[in-house]
């Protein structure tokens, strides 16, 4: 190897190391940005799932808020405010938990209302039958009374 080619090789390596050092924070930032974008996208997909899950439409306001915060996270990501994006994403994760809890509560509420109605129906049936039974007993007593009077009359 000549002295000249050895020097070129050294320069090449030095340049490569410098480029790697210069690129690493940028690559790190790009990776972070990608991660945040992925997280926002994932959460946006799960908002649609939550909407489907909310059959009784009990969490419309909360879902609207969640969407607006995800938009806020997106806009902060565009401004490279990564710490703030993470804060907003933490909030949206908790908001999604809240929505899930509210959806479950709304389904349980509906179930309780259905059972209450069913119970009211049975109780109404009981009341009707009680009344019918009392009337039948009354008629029966009246008939038994007239039969007894008839029996007495025939023996005399």
């Amino acid at each position: 190897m000549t002295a000249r080619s050895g020097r070129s090789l050294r320069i090449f390596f030095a340049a490569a190391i410098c480029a790697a050092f210069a690129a690493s924070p940028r690559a790190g930032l790009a990776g972070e940005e990608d991660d945040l974008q992925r997280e926002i996208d994932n959460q946006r997909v799960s908002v649609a799932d939550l909407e489907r899950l909310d059959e009784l439409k009990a969490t419309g306001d909360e879902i609207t808020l969640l969407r607006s915060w995800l938009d806020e996270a997106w806009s902060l990501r565009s401004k490279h405010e990564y710490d703030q994006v993470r804060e907003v994403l933490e909030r949206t994760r908790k908001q999604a938990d809240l929505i899930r809890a509210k959806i479950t509560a709304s389904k349980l509420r509906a179930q309780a209302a259905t059972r209450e109605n069913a119970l009211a129906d049975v109780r109404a049936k009981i009341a009707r039958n009680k009344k019918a039974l009392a009337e039948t007993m009354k008629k029966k007593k009246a008939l038994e009374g007239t039969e007894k009077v008839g029996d007495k009359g025939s023996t005399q």
Partner: protein
Amino acid sequence: MNARAMAPRLACALLPALLAACATPPKPKELEAYEMLRTGNNLQEANKKSPDLVASAEKLGEKSREEWQSNDLEDSRRDAIMANIKLKTALALMEQEQLKTKIQTLSADQAKAEEEAADLSEKLANETEKLALLQK
């Protein structure tokens, strides 16, 4: 006009501005919403079901209040929102628990009522039959 005569006038002119600068800013609406939610609900019951959520909400609510008084309105707003979410979640979980208990009670009542209705139907059928025999 000499400096001695100017001083009280200057103080009078600057005092309102100084007072305004020191005054607490208006409470963020997110903190107001959290406080309303806190006073309008049964926290003790929610605390039984989700002590960690309630404690965390209380801590954030307190932090938000301090930040509001120190004029850190953005931080106050942010923490009040989080306190609100956590408290609402604790309340929703409490409601779930109450509804589950209610459904269990309703199921038991329903079973009892069904039994009573069946007994009554049988009795009514018997008595109606007896009445029909008497009428013949």
